[in-house]
């Protein structure tokens, strides 16, 4: 395998792991709030998180540029203050993958949390637990299977992300060219052998993720 392919693979795995970690940090609390709390703007939050699931990834990527690009709402002030922009860095690939994977985790985890019997939470409250402790000790452990399934889906989605990554991070070999982007480049430049290798690698990796997740799920059930 060429050094370019290896670098693409290592980048893809780094991006997917980091995106999954960010998903866990943002998505699990968000899923809990959507499942258990009523708050103003809940419908809007729900819609915003879910949109990347139905929009073309390039559209999501476009919004990310509007938000984070050098002239973006957040990226603009940051660029003028520090001279640094996230676009065309590997962090941009992480952001793109995180946003694209988030709805999969949030929807799966939310359904799992909603299926936890509320009397269990009420029992914990009468036994002295705050809502926060109840979530940590009762609700989330009981929703564990659904949350893990959601994280696996999020990881797989992050690993395969293409469109939004291309928009925000570009396709710079050795810096932002993840495996899916490298496959595209290889096909475009006629290096079909290189493409085939990467395709096989990504397919194998995805199968491994699904098998491990299946085992894990079976053991937890």
């Amino acid at each position, binding site marked *: 395998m060429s050094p370019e392919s290896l670098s693409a693979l290592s980048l893809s795995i780094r991006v997917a792991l980091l995106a999954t970690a960010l998903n866990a940090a943002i998505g699990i609390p968000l899923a809990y709030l959507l499942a258990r709390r009523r708050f103003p703007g809940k419908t809007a939050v729900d819609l915003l998180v879910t949109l990347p699931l139905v929009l073309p990834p390039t559209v999501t990527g476009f919004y990310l540029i509007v938000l984070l690009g050098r002239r973006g709402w957040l990226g603009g002030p940051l660029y003028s203050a520090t001279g640094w922009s996230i676009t065309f860095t590997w962090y941009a690939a992480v952001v793109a993958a995180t946003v694209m994977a988030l709805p999969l985790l949030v929807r799966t985890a939310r359904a799992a949390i909603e299926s936890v019997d509320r009397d269990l939470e009420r029992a914990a*409250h009468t036994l002295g637990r705050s809502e926060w402790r109840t979530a940590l000790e009762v609700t989330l452990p009981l929703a564990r299977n659904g949350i893990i399934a959601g994280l696996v889906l999020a990881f797989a989605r992050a690993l395969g992300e293409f469109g939004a990554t291309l928009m925000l991070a570009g396709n710079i070999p050795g810096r932002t060219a993840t495996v899916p982007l490298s496959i595209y480049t290889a096909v475009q430049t006629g290096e079909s052998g290189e493409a085939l290798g990467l395709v096989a690698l990504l397919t194998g990796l995805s199968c491994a993720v699904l098998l491990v997740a299946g085992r894990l799920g079976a053991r937890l059930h």
Partner: protein
Amino acid sequence: MGGPRTTPQSPPGSARLQVAIGKHLPGFALDVRWTAGDGVAVLFGPSGAGKSLTLACLAGLVRPDAGRIVLDDRVLFDAAAGVDVPPQRRRVGYVFQGYALFPHLSVAENVGFGLRDRPKAERARRVAEVIERLGLGGLEARRPAELSGGQRQRVALGRALAIDPALLLLDEPLSALDLPLRRALRDELRATLADLRTAAVVVTHDFTEAYRLGDRIVVYEDGRVVQAAPRSELLWQPASEAVARIMAIPNVLHGTVVKATPDRIQLRWRGQLLEAVNSPARAYLPPPDARLAFFIRPEYVRLIRKDRGLADPTHHMNVMHGTVVEEMDFGTTWMLRIRLDEPGEPAQGAFDLEVEVPHLVYEILEIERDRRWEFSIHRGSIHVLPG
């Protein structure tokens, strides 16, 4: 349970728990007021009457719109004063319908769940004590899924009792069990509650259960309290026809008043002149010709033996004649449905009275063969229901 009791003992007879709350939900309004002393109070009534909602308010899981809840001089809730003690600080043990045991925790972890603030050694001692007390020894490491229904109920009770609650709430504690187990556990639960001497509130829609478990019964209907009384008073003196119907008392009938005195009430029903005892406690004096509801307990109707000659007016009163038109075998007793000889529409569809006789009596009198009977009802067994 061992250990010093921290609950101040109220003087006997005084109310330990005072409840007066209102809560409006879409399509339902709860507006109840009752008190309970030491011992077990049962909230009894049909499903959807607001019993479980009341428990949730007592535990602080649902916030009432109005009213006050006072437990042992501790104000748990007061809408006017803005007091609402959160469930975490009410020290109220709650046994949920279906038990709500934590499925991912062992029996010992479930029982010890409410003791997190205590030192480890004390927690272990308390868990061991409760497990011993409820006969759960040997099951400490089991998960709830590996327990029988009766064991689950005891774990739920143990988990609620471990925190040494000032008040114990039980929501349909037996409804998740099979019938044979249900009877055994009902009596076991009664013994446990009597031993504890913790004030307890039990919700049930089964009158037998209410009567077995409760010292005092609060009857709910449609979000309101229709009667609150010691259990024997409720059994013999339901406050109204509505209460009698909720209790599923058979033979709730309607007659017209002929004459009412503080001792007796004469009434006309299906062409018969009946005489009933007026309740000395609450003498009820309806005017003549007023419509009057009353009930006759099926086990207090006496069939008159035909081999003993004519009915003796000094022993038998309220004598009637009728035919058995239907009978039901309940194993140890028979329920006979009797239609009076009087012409006209029977009082209860195809029959006028339900009469319960023990199996032995059924055989001795050869009721299977003989369908026409003369029977009598003592005046003390006709219970007038104030309107």
